[in-house]
């Protein structure tokens, strides 16, 4: 294998990994900041119902 190609592939992995990590953390922070309080009873009631549809 051409070392230049390997270098490009590794660089790509690193760069895309960084982008993914950055946006992942960003989304997690956004989800934390803009969290909406859901009523836990809604889940419980849905659990008890038949839920075929």
């Amino acid at each position: 294998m051409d070392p230049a190609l390997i270098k490009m592939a590794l660089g790509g992995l690193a760069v895309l990994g960084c982008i993914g990590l950055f946006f992942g953390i960003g989304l997690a922070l956004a989800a934390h900041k803009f969290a909406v309080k859901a009523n836990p009873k809604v889940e419980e009631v849905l659990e008890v119902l038949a839920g075929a549809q």
Partner: protein
Amino acid sequence: MNIVIRKCLLAAVLTVLAAFLTTGCATEHRFIKKTAFKDTNQIVIEFAGPVDEAWAKNPSHYSVYEKPDPDIKLKIQTITLSPDRKTVALTFADPLNQNQPHVLTATGITSEGKSLGTAILSVKKVYLGYLFSILIGAMIINNFVFTKYLGLCVFFGTSQKKSTAVGMGITFTIVIVVSAMMAWFLYQFVLRPYRLNFLQIVVFIGLVSLSVQAVDTILRKVNPMLFKAFGVYLVLVIANCIIIAVPLILADNEYNALESLMLALGAGLGFLIALFLMSSVRERLELARVPPTYRGLPIAFVVAGLFALAFLGFSGMSIF
């Protein structure tokens, strides 16, 4: 105190962003003041100072091509230098297609015996008009639904009622603008410098789902009413192929930030127009006496074909 610092930071970030957006990544040369088209077959270059006549008159120092085809160099017929040696007019053998930006390379500019390096310039028509023509082009003349047949599944799925159609159109416009701007930024500043162009599809798909997820999360908290109105369409946007076509087009054409914004806005508004037109017709079709075999989707496809024919009337139109 804290708030003041935060506001300053925000302002700084916005200014940097604005600077990025206005300058784009143009590779302008500081010795060249202006380039413009003149008549049908001339390009005029205005220099900041006098250039040497021996350099300016040599046609091998210039190479010009139309933006999409770098291999086809345009033939330069004559070169005229103004008496003050500040403006050079290149006359071409054939008329130029001024709707396309041209790329002009001037190698080894020399002024008063000093070499000033090579300049790669793009020659464009008056800028605002050019932006407007991209917007109208993406919106009507090359409408993504009716002339490129993209995004049909969402188009037929959500065009039964006018209210849902408009809701989908607006959601789509917002998401496509956000994701196209992010795609432009990543393409220009990450993918291209690292020579990762071949990964663009993967990255753009990720960006689309990212922006949909972000809009979903933020809207749920900030404006629950709007979130309810958008409902399921927000998630459906991911399944639309216009939203992946736009980043690919703007990466292919090397658009700058404003041009990309216009393309994305045009694509979104074009989709909104298409959905609105289609839903108005389909609402009336409910009352029409359609043969039973044609009811529902088949007649909708026939109507879409008629719309496509009507939109064909715009094709080949050029603005300005």
